[in-house]
C-alpha cells in the first residue's frame, strides 16, 4: 500500500501582476487546475491575495498584490470563488472589480435586500428560518423565496458562529496553532488537524514517517466512519423513518465508543499533533478493534439493505434536491455531494502524505443522478470502503510516528485532506516558525453554495431532507 511519490502534496507558488489576475486564474483552471480557495493576507502592506488550484497531488498558488485594496474579480470565469471574495471584502476590506453585486457574507447588515437576491412575481413571498432551529442543529439563517410551497431561490446566511479563530491564531507558534484548526469543528476535528499538521510540516521542512502517515489515515477513516453513519441516520430522520434513524444512531454510537477505546476521545480530539503521533496500538488492542469493526460492518450492511429496499423511504429520496454534475463542477462542490453527481474527485487519491495506496479511487454511485438518493448511496459505498481500509490498517501494530527535517522550509504552505464532507484545504504563512496567516477552507465551505443551488425548485418541507443529505457543517464554515 506504499506510494512512491514524495510524502506530501507539492506546492508551486507564482506571483501574478494584478492587471492580469483574471486571465492568470482562468488559465490555471484551463490547464486542469481545480479552484480550491482564495484568501487575503493583510499582515504586510500592501495586502496580498492568493488563489489556490488543485491538480492531483500538486497545489498551485497564484499570488497578487492588492494595491489600493482593489483587485479584478475572478467570479465570472470561476463562480466557485464567490464566497472567498465576499469573505475577503467583509473581513479584510478588499474590493473586487466585476463582482457585482458584492453581497455581504460574514457581515450581517440588517437590511435584507443588501444580502438577498430580489425575487419578484405574483404570489412570491419570503420564509425566514433561523438562526435558532426547531431541533438540535447548528445556528444559521435561511431566507427562502417561495410560491406556495415551491422554493424559487434560497439565500443562506451563515457566520453566526464566527469566533475569529484564524485571527486569534496569528502570531502563535506553529505547534500551538493546531488547536485553533481543531476547534473550528467537532465533526471535522481530525481532517482539519491533519490538514493543518501537514501544512505546518511542509512549512517547517518536515517529512512524515511511514508510522505517522498510517496513524493519520487510521484516525481520518475513524472520523469518516461515524460521520457517514450519522449522515444515514440524519437522512432517515429527514423522511420521518424513525427505525432507520435509530438503527444508524445506534451504529454511530458504537463507532464513537470505538474511537474512545482507540484514541481516548469519542470525537478523536487531541489525537493529531504537529510533527508527531502518539497513537500506540499493540496487537491485543488491534484484535479487539478489528473484531468490533467486523461486527459493526456486518450490522451496518444489514441495516443499509433495509433502507435501500424500503419503497416508502426510497420514494422520498429519488429526484429530490438534484445537483447535476456540471453545476457541481461550476460551483466547486466536493466530497460525497460532488461524487453523487458523477464528479470523480476524492482527495484521498491525491494524498502522498497519508496511506491510501495508489489504487484508491472516488466512489461514484450507478446513475449518479445527484439527488438525495445518490448522496445517500455514496455514504453507503464509502462505508464499505472505510471498513476495508480500517481492517487493513489495523492488520499491523500502530506505532508512534514522527516527521523529520528533510526538505527546505516554506513561507507559504498548503495541504489538502478529504474530510467526510469533501476536500478541506489548510493554507498557512509563517515567519520564524510563527503563524502570520491561517486559512482553513473546509469541504462544507465549498459546498454551501451548491446546497443552496440544489434546493431551488424543491418543496419547502423537503429542505430539511436536502440539508441532511449534504449534512454540511456550519462551525467550520464560520470559524
Amino acid at each position, binding site marked *: 500500500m506504499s506510494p512512491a511519490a514524495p510524502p506530501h502534496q507539492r506546492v508551486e507558488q507564482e506571483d501574478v501582476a494584478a492587471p492580469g489576475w483574471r486571465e492568470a486564474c482562468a488559465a490555471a483552471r484551463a490547464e486542469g487546475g481545480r479552484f480550491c480557495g482564495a484568501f487575503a493576507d493583510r499582515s504586510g502592506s500592501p495586502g496580498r491575495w492568493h488563489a489556490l488550484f488543485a491538480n492531483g497531488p500538486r497545489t498551485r498558488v497564484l499570488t497578487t498584490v492588492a494595491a489600493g485594496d482593489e483587485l479584478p474579480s475572478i467570479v465570472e470565469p470561476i463562480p466557485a470563488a464567490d464566497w472567498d471574495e465576499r469573505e475577503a471584502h467583509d473581513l479584510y476590506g478588499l474590493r473586487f472589480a466585476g463582482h457585482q453585486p458584492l453581497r455581504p457574507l460574514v457581515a450581517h447588515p440588517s437590511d435584507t435586500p443588501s444580502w438577498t437576491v430580489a425575487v419578484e412575481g405574483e404570489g412570491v413571498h419570503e420564509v425566514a428560518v433561523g438562526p435558532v432551529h426547531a431541533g438540535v442543529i447548528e445556528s444559521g439563517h435561511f431566507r427562502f423565496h417561495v410560491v406556495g410551497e415551491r422554493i424559487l431561490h434560497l439565500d443562506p446566511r451563515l457566520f453566526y458562529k464566527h469566533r475569529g479563530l484564524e485571527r486569534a491564531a496569528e502570531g502563535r507558534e506553529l505547534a500551538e496553532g493546531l488547536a485553533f484548526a481543531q476547534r473550528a469543528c467537532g*465533526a471535522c476535528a481530525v481532517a482539519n488537524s491533519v490538514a493543518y499538521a501537514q501544512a505546518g510540516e511542509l512549512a517547517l521542512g518536515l517529512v512524515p514517517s511511514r508510522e505517522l502517515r498510517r496513524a493519520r489515515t487510521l484516525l481520518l477513516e475513524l472520523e469518516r466512519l461515524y460521520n457517514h453513519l450519522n449522515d444515514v441516520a440524519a437522512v432517515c430522520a429527514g423522511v420521518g423513518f424513525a427505525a432507520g434513524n435509530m438503527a444508524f444512531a445506534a451504529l454511530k454510537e458504537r463507532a464513537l465508543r470505538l474511537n474512545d477505546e482507540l484514541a481516548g476521545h469519542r470525537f478523536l480530539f487531541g489525537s493529531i499533533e504537529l510533527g508527531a503521533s502518539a497513537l500506540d496500538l499493540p496487537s491485543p488492542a488491534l484484535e479487539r478493534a478489528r473484531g468490533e469493526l467486523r461486527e459493526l460492518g456486518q450490522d451496518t450492511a444489514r441495516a443499509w439493505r433495509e433502507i435501500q429496499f424500503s419503497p416508502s423511504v426510497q420514494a422520498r429520496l429519488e429526484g429530490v434536491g438534484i445537483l447535476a454534475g456540471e453545476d457541481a463542477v461550476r460551483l466547486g462542490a466536493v466530497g460525497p455531494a460532488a461524487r453523487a453527481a458523477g464528479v470523480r474527485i476524492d482527495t484521498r487519491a491525491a494524498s502522498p502524505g497519508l496511506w491510501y495506496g495508489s489504487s484508491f479511487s472516488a466512489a461514484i454511485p450507478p446513475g449518479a443522478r445527484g439527488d438525495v438518493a445518490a448522496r445517500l448511496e455514496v455514504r453507503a459505498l464509502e462505508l464499505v470502503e472505510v471498513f476495508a481500509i480500517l481492517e487493513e490498517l489495523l492488520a499491523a501494530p500502530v506505532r508512534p510516528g514522527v516527521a523529520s527535517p528533510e526538505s527546505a522550509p516554506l513561507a507559504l504552505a498548503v495541504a489538502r485532506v478529504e474530510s467526510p464532507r469533501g476536500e478541506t484545504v489548510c493554507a498557512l504563512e509563517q515567519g520564524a516558525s510563527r503563524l502570520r496567516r491561517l486559512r482553513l477552507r473546509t469541504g462544507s465551505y465549498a459546498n454551501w453554495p451548491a446546497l443552496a443551488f440544489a434546493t431551488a425548485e424543491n418543496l419547502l418541507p423537503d429542505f430539511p431532507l436536502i440539508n441532511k443529505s449534504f449534512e454540511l457543517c456550519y462551525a467550520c464554515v464560520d470559524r
Partner: protein
Amino acid sequence: MYVLLRHLQRVRREAALPRRAGARSLAIRHVDAGSCNACEHELTATAAPQYDLQRFGLDIVASPRHADVLLVTGPVTTRMADSLRVVYEAMPEPRRVAALGDCALGCGVLGTVAELAGPLEELLPVDIRIPGCPPTPQAIADAILALTR
C-alpha cells in the same frame, strides 16, 4: 423494516437501561451559540437507543414557548447573543438555563474578543452546568435527570 426493529430490540437488551420513574418530564429547547458542534452530537446521542432519554419524558421542543429548560452550547458569539436573549425571554416561568459543555462554561474558549460575547453566565442566569468537551451523553443525561427529581 422487521430486520431494523429486531436490531433495535437487541441494542435495547444489550444496553440494559435502568427503569427509573422520574417525577417529572421536561421540555428542552436547545440554542447553539457558536459551538464546534460536538456538544450537539452528544445531545442528539441522548435520544439514541443506548441512552434513550425520551423514555423519561425528556424531549427537545421546537419552540421556547413550550420549554422548561434552555440548553445552550457554544461560547456565545456576539452574533448569537441577541437571538439567545429572545429565546430566553420567550420562555414562560418556571424556566431553567443549562450551560452545556466547556465553551458555554467559558473554559478554554478560542477566538477573538471582538467575536465573543460569552460566557453564558454573564448573559443569562445559569442553573445547571454540564462540563466536558464535549460532555458524554451519560453526563448530559445525569445532569438533566437531576432536574426531574
